[in-house]
Protein backbone atom coordinates (compact mmCIF):
# COMPACT_ATOMS: atom_id res chain seq x y z
CA UNK A 1 0.00 0.00 0.00
CA UNK A 2 1.23 3.42 -0.86
CA UNK A 3 1.67 5.43 2.27
CA UNK A 4 0.54 8.86 3.23
CA UNK A 5 2.49 11.35 5.25
CA UNK A 6 0.84 14.15 7.17
CA UNK A 7 2.75 17.31 7.96
CA UNK A 8 0.85 19.71 10.19
CA UNK A 9 2.55 23.10 10.45
CA UNK A 10 1.59 26.28 12.25
CA UNK A 11 3.62 29.49 12.08
CA UNK A 12 5.07 28.60 15.46
CA UNK A 13 6.09 25.02 14.95
CA UNK A 14 5.62 21.74 13.17
CA UNK A 15 3.11 19.85 15.25
CA UNK A 16 2.93 16.62 13.40
CA UNK A 17 5.08 14.85 10.86
CA UNK A 18 4.29 11.15 10.66
CA UNK A 19 3.01 8.55 8.24
CA UNK A 20 -0.73 7.95 8.51
CA UNK A 21 -3.31 5.73 6.84
CA UNK A 22 -5.99 8.30 6.19
CA UNK A 23 -6.80 11.92 6.91
CA UNK A 24 -9.95 13.94 7.12
CA UNK A 25 -9.66 17.71 6.94
CA UNK A 26 -12.24 20.47 7.31
CA UNK A 27 -12.35 22.24 3.95
CA UNK A 28 -14.05 25.60 3.59
CA UNK A 29 -17.32 23.95 2.61
CA UNK A 30 -17.24 20.66 4.47
CA UNK A 31 -15.10 17.69 5.32
CA UNK A 32 -12.79 16.04 2.82
CA UNK A 33 -11.01 12.75 3.27
CA UNK A 34 -7.68 11.73 1.80
CA UNK A 35 -6.43 8.23 1.23
CA UNK A 36 -3.06 7.29 -0.25
CA UNK A 37 -2.90 7.99 -3.96
CA UNK A 38 -4.95 11.18 -3.88
CA UNK A 39 -4.45 13.41 -6.91
CA UNK A 40 -2.53 16.64 -6.21
CA UNK A 41 -4.67 19.29 -4.61
CA UNK A 42 -4.45 22.68 -2.97
CA UNK A 43 -7.43 23.66 -0.88
CA UNK A 44 -8.62 26.25 1.53
CA UNK A 45 -9.41 25.05 5.02
CA UNK A 46 -12.27 26.02 7.21
CA UNK A 47 -12.49 25.76 10.96
CA UNK A 48 -13.01 22.37 12.46
CA UNK A 49 -11.68 18.94 13.13
CA UNK A 50 -8.72 17.33 11.45
CA UNK A 51 -8.91 13.63 11.98
CA UNK A 52 -6.20 11.16 11.13
CA UNK A 53 -5.99 7.42 11.42
CA UNK A 54 -2.62 5.72 11.64
CA UNK A 55 -1.64 2.27 10.41
CA UNK A 56 -3.08 0.51 13.46
CA UNK A 57 -6.49 2.09 13.13
CA UNK A 58 -5.94 4.46 16.03
CA UNK A 59 -7.29 7.90 15.30
CA UNK A 60 -6.34 11.29 16.59
CA UNK A 61 -8.07 14.64 16.29
CA UNK A 62 -6.80 18.17 16.04
CA UNK A 63 -8.70 21.39 15.97
CA UNK A 64 -7.50 23.55 13.08
CA UNK A 65 -8.26 27.21 12.55
CA UNK A 66 -8.31 27.92 8.83
CA UNK A 67 -5.35 27.74 6.49
CA UNK A 68 -4.49 25.51 3.56
CA UNK A 69 -4.00 21.91 2.66
CA UNK A 70 -1.66 20.75 -0.04
CA UNK A 71 -1.58 17.19 -1.33
CA UNK A 72 1.51 16.40 -3.31
CA UNK A 73 2.31 12.80 -4.00
CA UNK A 74 2.37 10.93 -0.71
CA UNK A 75 2.65 14.07 1.36
CA UNK A 76 -0.24 16.02 2.78
CA UNK A 77 0.76 19.38 4.22
CA UNK A 78 -1.68 21.23 6.39
CA UNK A 79 -0.83 24.87 7.06
CA UNK A 80 -2.91 26.49 9.70
CA UNK A 81 -2.84 29.50 12.00
CA UNK A 82 -3.45 27.42 15.07
CA UNK A 83 -3.89 23.75 15.82
CA UNK A 84 -4.78 22.12 19.11
CA UNK A 85 -4.95 18.42 19.87
CA UNK A 86 -8.50 17.44 20.77
CA UNK A 87 -7.31 15.96 24.05
CA UNK A 88 -6.18 19.41 25.13
CA UNK A 89 -9.38 21.30 24.50
CA UNK A 90 -11.20 22.07 27.67
CA UNK A 91 -14.99 22.00 27.64
CA UNK A 92 -15.31 24.73 30.21
CA UNK A 93 -13.06 27.12 28.36
CA UNK A 94 -14.66 26.57 25.00
CA UNK A 95 -18.12 26.96 26.48
CA UNK A 96 -16.99 30.27 27.91
CA UNK A 97 -15.68 31.26 24.50
CA UNK A 98 -19.00 30.37 22.90
CA UNK A 99 -20.82 32.51 25.44
CA UNK A 100 -18.46 35.34 24.68
CA UNK A 101 -18.99 34.94 20.95
CA UNK A 102 -22.76 34.90 21.46
CA UNK A 103 -22.56 38.08 23.45
CA UNK A 104 -20.66 39.92 20.73
CA UNK A 105 -22.76 42.66 19.24
CA UNK A 106 -22.39 43.36 15.57
CA UNK A 107 -23.68 46.47 13.92
CA UNK A 108 -21.97 46.76 10.56
CA UNK A 109 -21.58 44.11 7.91
CA UNK A 110 -17.90 43.69 8.70
CA UNK A 111 -18.53 43.23 12.38
CA UNK A 112 -21.16 40.66 11.61
CA UNK A 113 -18.74 38.64 9.52
CA UNK A 114 -16.21 38.70 12.33
CA UNK A 115 -18.84 37.73 14.87
CA UNK A 116 -20.11 34.84 12.75
CA UNK A 117 -16.59 33.54 12.32
CA UNK A 118 -16.00 33.77 16.04
CA UNK A 119 -19.21 31.90 16.70
CA UNK A 120 -18.36 29.14 14.23
CA UNK A 121 -14.94 28.77 15.74
CA UNK A 122 -16.31 28.53 19.27
CA UNK A 123 -18.94 25.97 18.22
CA UNK A 124 -16.35 23.81 16.50
CA UNK A 125 -14.12 24.00 19.55
CA UNK A 126 -16.91 23.03 21.91
CA UNK A 127 -17.94 20.13 19.69
CA UNK A 128 -14.47 18.73 19.93
CA UNK A 129 -13.87 19.39 23.59
CA UNK A 130 -13.08 16.16 25.37
CA UNK A 131 -12.12 17.15 28.87
CA UNK A 132 -13.69 19.38 31.45
Amino acid at each position, binding site marked *: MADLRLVLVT*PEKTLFDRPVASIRVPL*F*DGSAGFYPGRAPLVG*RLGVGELRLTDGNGVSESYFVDGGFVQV*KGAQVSVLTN*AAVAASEISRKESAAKLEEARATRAISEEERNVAVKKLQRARALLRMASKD
Partner: protein
Amino acid sequence: MANARLLVKRLKAVRNIRKITRTMELIATSRFKKAMDRATEAAEYTKKISEIVGDLGRASLSFAHPLLEKRTEEKRSILLVLTSNRGLCGGYNASVLRQTVAHVREMKAKNVECALEVSGKRGIKFLNFQKYPLAASYTNFEDQPAFAQVNELGTRYAEDFIAGRIDRLDVAYTRFESSSRQIAVVESLLPLSSLSTGTDTAKDSGIEYEFLPSAQEVLEEIVPAAFRAKLFKCFLDAAVSEQIARMVAMKGATENADEMAGSLKQQYNRARQAGITSELAEIIGGAAALE
Protein backbone atom coordinates in the same frame (compact mmCIF):
# COMPACT_ATOMS: atom_id res chain seq x y z
CA MET B 1 49.97 55.49 47.74
CA ALA B 2 46.64 53.94 46.93
CA ASN B 3 44.52 52.93 49.87
CA ALA B 4 44.66 49.15 50.17
CA ARG B 5 41.25 48.87 51.83
CA LEU B 6 39.61 50.90 49.08
CA LEU B 7 41.19 48.70 46.47
CA VAL B 8 39.88 45.57 48.17
CA LYS B 9 36.38 47.04 48.11
CA ARG B 10 36.58 47.90 44.44
CA LEU B 11 37.97 44.51 43.61
CA LYS B 12 35.03 42.86 45.35
CA ALA B 13 32.56 45.07 43.47
CA VAL B 14 34.15 44.25 40.12
CA ARG B 15 34.08 40.55 40.88
CA ASN B 16 30.40 40.74 41.80
CA ILE B 17 29.58 42.54 38.60
CA ARG B 18 31.51 39.92 36.70
CA LYS B 19 29.36 37.23 38.26
CA ILE B 20 26.22 39.03 37.12
CA THR B 21 27.38 39.66 33.57
CA ARG B 22 28.61 36.10 33.27
CA THR B 23 25.22 34.78 34.37
CA MET B 24 23.42 37.09 31.97
CA GLU B 25 25.63 35.85 29.19
CA LEU B 26 24.71 32.26 29.95
CA ILE B 27 21.01 33.09 30.17
CA ALA B 28 21.16 34.95 26.85
CA THR B 29 22.91 31.96 25.29
CA SER B 30 20.18 29.54 26.32
CA ARG B 31 17.42 31.98 25.32
CA PHE B 32 19.13 32.49 21.99
CA LYS B 33 19.06 28.76 21.37
CA LYS B 34 15.35 28.61 22.17
CA ALA B 35 14.55 31.62 20.01
CA MET B 36 16.64 30.16 17.22
CA ASP B 37 14.71 26.87 17.38
CA ARG B 38 11.44 28.76 17.14
CA ALA B 39 12.68 30.71 14.16
CA THR B 40 13.70 27.50 12.40
CA GLU B 41 10.31 25.95 13.08
CA ALA B 42 8.59 29.03 11.74
CA ALA B 43 10.71 28.91 8.60
CA GLU B 44 8.95 25.65 7.74
CA TYR B 45 5.62 27.45 7.51
CA THR B 46 6.92 30.23 5.29
CA LYS B 47 8.59 27.64 3.10
CA LYS B 48 5.30 25.82 2.61
CA ILE B 49 3.46 29.06 1.89
CA SER B 50 5.92 30.01 -0.81
CA GLU B 51 5.68 26.49 -2.18
CA ILE B 52 1.93 26.85 -2.61
CA VAL B 53 2.44 30.30 -4.12
CA GLY B 54 4.83 28.70 -6.57
CA ASP B 55 2.18 26.12 -7.42
CA LEU B 56 -0.36 28.87 -7.92
CA GLY B 57 1.99 30.55 -10.33
CA ARG B 58 1.47 27.63 -12.68
CA ALA B 59 -2.25 28.13 -12.68
CA SER B 60 -1.62 31.29 -14.73
CA LEU B 61 -3.91 33.71 -13.03
CA SER B 62 -3.56 37.37 -12.38
CA PHE B 63 -1.73 38.02 -9.16
CA ALA B 64 -4.03 40.81 -8.15
CA HIS B 65 -4.82 41.37 -4.52
CA PRO B 66 -5.45 44.58 -2.57
CA LEU B 67 -2.43 43.83 -0.37
CA LEU B 68 -0.16 43.68 -3.41
CA GLU B 69 -1.28 46.94 -4.96
CA LYS B 70 1.18 49.76 -4.88
CA ARG B 71 -0.48 53.08 -4.21
CA THR B 72 0.37 55.84 -6.62
CA GLU B 73 0.16 58.42 -3.90
CA GLU B 74 1.34 57.64 -0.40
CA LYS B 75 -0.14 59.78 2.28
CA ARG B 76 -0.32 57.83 5.49
CA SER B 77 2.03 55.19 6.69
CA ILE B 78 2.72 53.19 9.79
CA LEU B 79 6.17 52.40 11.07
CA LEU B 80 6.33 49.51 13.47
CA VAL B 81 9.49 49.61 15.58
CA LEU B 82 10.66 46.44 17.25
CA THR B 83 12.94 47.02 20.21
CA SER B 84 13.57 45.06 23.37
CA ASN B 85 11.94 45.45 26.74
CA ARG B 86 15.24 45.15 28.54
CA GLY B 87 18.54 46.87 28.07
CA LEU B 88 22.09 45.62 28.50
CA CYS B 89 22.27 44.38 24.97
CA GLY B 90 24.89 46.64 23.44
CA GLY B 91 23.91 48.63 20.40
CA TYR B 92 20.84 46.55 19.63
CA ASN B 93 18.19 49.14 20.44
CA ALA B 94 20.30 52.11 19.44
CA SER B 95 20.80 50.88 15.90
CA VAL B 96 17.10 50.11 15.39
CA LEU B 97 16.17 53.53 16.73
CA ARG B 98 18.74 55.24 14.53
CA GLN B 99 17.07 53.62 11.52
CA THR B 100 13.68 54.66 12.86
CA VAL B 101 14.59 58.30 13.22
CA ALA B 102 16.14 58.35 9.75
CA HIS B 103 12.99 56.79 8.29
CA VAL B 104 10.69 59.24 10.05
CA ARG B 105 12.75 62.14 8.67
CA GLU B 106 12.63 60.68 5.18
CA MET B 107 8.86 60.27 5.39
CA LYS B 108 8.53 63.85 6.60
CA ALA B 109 10.60 65.05 3.67
CA LYS B 110 8.30 63.16 1.33
CA ASN B 111 5.28 64.65 3.06
CA VAL B 112 3.96 61.30 4.17
CA GLU B 113 2.22 61.12 7.48
CA CYS B 114 3.99 58.51 9.57
CA ALA B 115 2.40 56.96 12.64
CA LEU B 116 4.83 55.27 15.00
CA GLU B 117 3.94 52.03 16.70
CA VAL B 118 6.58 50.80 19.05
CA SER B 119 7.11 47.47 20.71
CA GLY B 120 9.54 47.30 23.62
CA LYS B 121 10.11 49.54 26.62
CA ARG B 122 13.48 50.73 25.37
CA GLY B 123 12.09 52.14 22.16
CA ILE B 124 9.09 53.69 23.92
CA LYS B 125 11.34 55.44 26.43
CA PHE B 126 13.69 56.79 23.78
CA LEU B 127 10.98 58.05 21.44
CA ASN B 128 9.03 59.61 24.28
CA PHE B 129 12.19 61.37 25.37
CA GLN B 130 12.72 62.64 21.83
CA LYS B 131 9.09 63.81 21.86
CA TYR B 132 7.93 61.71 18.93
CA PRO B 133 4.20 61.07 19.13
CA LEU B 134 3.47 57.35 19.44
CA ALA B 135 0.31 55.96 17.89
CA ALA B 136 0.57 52.74 19.86
CA SER B 137 3.02 50.99 22.09
CA TYR B 138 3.33 47.36 23.05
CA THR B 139 5.35 45.76 25.80
CA ASN B 140 3.79 42.31 25.61
CA PHE B 141 6.23 40.88 23.08
CA GLU B 142 8.91 39.11 25.04
CA ASP B 143 11.66 36.92 23.69
CA GLN B 144 9.09 34.37 22.52
CA PRO B 145 6.49 36.30 20.56
CA ALA B 146 3.29 34.30 20.12
CA PHE B 147 1.75 34.05 16.69
CA ALA B 148 -1.71 34.83 18.03
CA GLN B 149 -0.53 38.23 19.26
CA VAL B 150 1.32 39.06 16.05
CA ASN B 151 -1.70 37.84 14.12
CA GLU B 152 -3.92 40.43 15.78
CA LEU B 153 -1.58 43.19 14.71
CA GLY B 154 -1.25 41.76 11.23
CA THR B 155 -4.99 41.50 10.75
CA ARG B 156 -5.45 45.10 11.81
CA TYR B 157 -2.73 46.35 9.46
CA ALA B 158 -4.13 44.35 6.56
CA GLU B 159 -7.62 45.73 7.21
CA ASP B 160 -6.32 49.28 7.47
CA PHE B 161 -4.40 48.88 4.26
CA ILE B 162 -7.31 47.44 2.31
CA ALA B 163 -9.66 50.09 3.65
CA GLY B 164 -7.20 52.76 2.52
CA ARG B 165 -6.53 54.10 6.01
CA ILE B 166 -2.83 53.51 5.46
CA ASP B 167 -0.84 53.45 2.24
CA ARG B 168 2.22 51.66 3.46
CA LEU B 169 3.56 49.73 6.41
CA ASP B 170 7.21 49.55 7.34
CA VAL B 171 8.88 47.61 10.08
CA ALA B 172 12.11 48.70 11.74
CA TYR B 173 13.77 45.69 13.28
CA THR B 174 17.03 43.82 13.46
CA ARG B 175 17.26 41.28 10.71
CA PHE B 176 18.97 38.05 11.51
CA GLU B 177 21.40 37.09 8.74
CA SER B 178 23.60 34.66 10.57
CA SER B 179 24.60 34.15 14.16
CA SER B 180 27.51 36.51 13.65
CA ARG B 181 25.69 39.11 11.60
CA GLN B 182 22.50 41.01 12.33
CA ILE B 183 21.54 44.29 10.73
CA ALA B 184 19.03 46.90 11.77
CA VAL B 185 16.78 47.59 8.80
CA VAL B 186 13.57 49.31 7.84
CA GLU B 187 11.64 46.90 5.69
CA SER B 188 8.53 47.72 3.75
CA LEU B 189 5.87 45.07 4.34
CA LEU B 190 2.79 46.62 2.75
CA PRO B 191 2.23 46.73 -0.14
CA LEU B 192 3.74 43.27 -0.32
CA SER B 193 6.53 43.44 -2.85
CA SER B 194 6.68 39.76 -3.59
CA LEU B 195 4.86 36.76 -2.28
CA SER B 196 7.88 34.57 -2.22
CA THR B 197 9.36 34.66 1.23
CA GLY B 198 11.97 32.11 0.38
CA THR B 199 14.31 32.01 -2.56
CA ASP B 200 13.52 28.94 -4.58
CA THR B 201 9.91 29.48 -5.51
CA ALA B 202 10.62 29.61 -9.20
CA LYS B 203 11.29 25.90 -9.09
CA ASP B 204 8.57 24.23 -11.08
CA SER B 205 7.12 21.17 -9.45
CA GLY B 206 5.44 20.10 -12.69
CA ILE B 207 2.32 18.85 -10.94
CA GLU B 208 -1.16 19.77 -12.05
CA TYR B 209 -3.09 20.69 -8.93
CA GLU B 210 -6.74 20.68 -8.28
CA PHE B 211 -7.65 23.92 -6.54
CA LEU B 212 -10.49 24.06 -4.07
CA PRO B 213 -12.56 26.19 -4.37
CA SER B 214 -10.54 27.88 -7.15
CA ALA B 215 -7.00 29.07 -7.69
CA GLN B 216 -8.15 32.67 -7.41
CA GLU B 217 -9.78 32.13 -4.05
CA VAL B 218 -6.83 30.22 -2.69
CA LEU B 219 -4.69 33.16 -3.75
CA GLU B 220 -6.98 35.60 -2.01
CA GLU B 221 -6.55 33.65 1.17
CA ILE B 222 -2.84 33.02 0.87
CA VAL B 223 -1.77 36.64 0.37
CA PRO B 224 -2.83 37.70 3.87
CA ALA B 225 -1.32 34.49 5.23
CA ALA B 226 1.98 35.28 3.54
CA PHE B 227 1.86 38.81 4.95
CA ARG B 228 1.23 37.56 8.47
CA ALA B 229 3.99 35.01 8.18
CA LYS B 230 6.34 37.78 7.06
CA LEU B 231 5.35 40.00 9.97
CA PHE B 232 5.80 37.12 12.38
CA LYS B 233 9.23 36.47 10.95
CA CYS B 234 10.20 40.08 11.75
CA PHE B 235 9.26 39.53 15.38
CA LEU B 236 11.16 36.25 15.54
CA ASP B 237 14.23 37.76 13.91
CA ALA B 238 14.14 40.64 16.36
CA ALA B 239 13.91 38.22 19.28
CA VAL B 240 16.83 36.13 18.07
CA SER B 241 18.95 39.20 17.33
CA GLU B 242 18.24 40.65 20.76
CA GLN B 243 19.55 37.56 22.49
CA ILE B 244 22.66 37.51 20.31
CA ALA B 245 23.29 41.20 20.99
CA ARG B 246 22.93 40.61 24.72
CA MET B 247 25.17 37.58 24.57
CA VAL B 248 27.93 39.53 22.83
CA ALA B 249 27.54 42.57 25.07
CA MET B 250 27.69 40.47 28.22
CA LYS B 251 30.65 38.52 26.95
CA GLY B 252 32.50 41.81 26.45
CA ALA B 253 31.47 43.00 29.89
CA THR B 254 32.72 39.80 31.52
CA GLU B 255 36.05 40.08 29.76
CA ASN B 256 36.38 43.70 30.80
CA ALA B 257 35.59 42.80 34.38
CA ASP B 258 38.29 40.11 34.27
CA GLU B 259 40.81 42.61 33.02
CA MET B 260 39.81 45.19 35.60
CA ALA B 261 39.95 42.67 38.43
CA GLY B 262 43.47 41.73 37.30
CA SER B 263 44.76 45.28 37.29
CA LEU B 264 43.07 46.07 40.61
CA LYS B 265 44.62 43.01 42.18
CA GLN B 266 48.03 44.12 40.94
CA GLN B 267 47.52 47.63 42.32
CA TYR B 268 46.45 46.19 45.63
CA ASN B 269 49.48 43.94 45.85
CA ARG B 270 51.77 46.85 45.07
CA ALA B 271 50.09 49.03 47.67
CA ARG B 272 50.38 46.28 50.25
CA GLN B 273 54.04 45.68 49.44
CA ALA B 274 54.74 49.42 49.61
CA GLY B 275 53.11 49.53 53.03
CA ILE B 276 55.23 46.66 54.31
CA THR B 277 58.40 48.18 52.93
CA SER B 278 57.77 51.55 54.51
CA GLU B 279 56.94 49.91 57.86
CA LEU B 280 60.16 47.91 57.72
CA ALA B 281 62.09 51.05 56.88
CA GLU B 282 60.58 52.77 59.87
CA ILE B 283 61.43 49.89 62.22
CA ILE B 284 64.99 49.70 60.95
CA GLY B 285 65.29 53.46 61.15
CA GLY B 286 63.99 53.41 64.74
CA ALA B 287 66.39 50.61 65.72
CA ALA B 288 69.32 52.50 64.14
CA ALA B 289 68.40 55.63 66.09
CA LEU B 290 68.49 53.72 69.41
CA GLU B 291 72.00 52.43 68.96
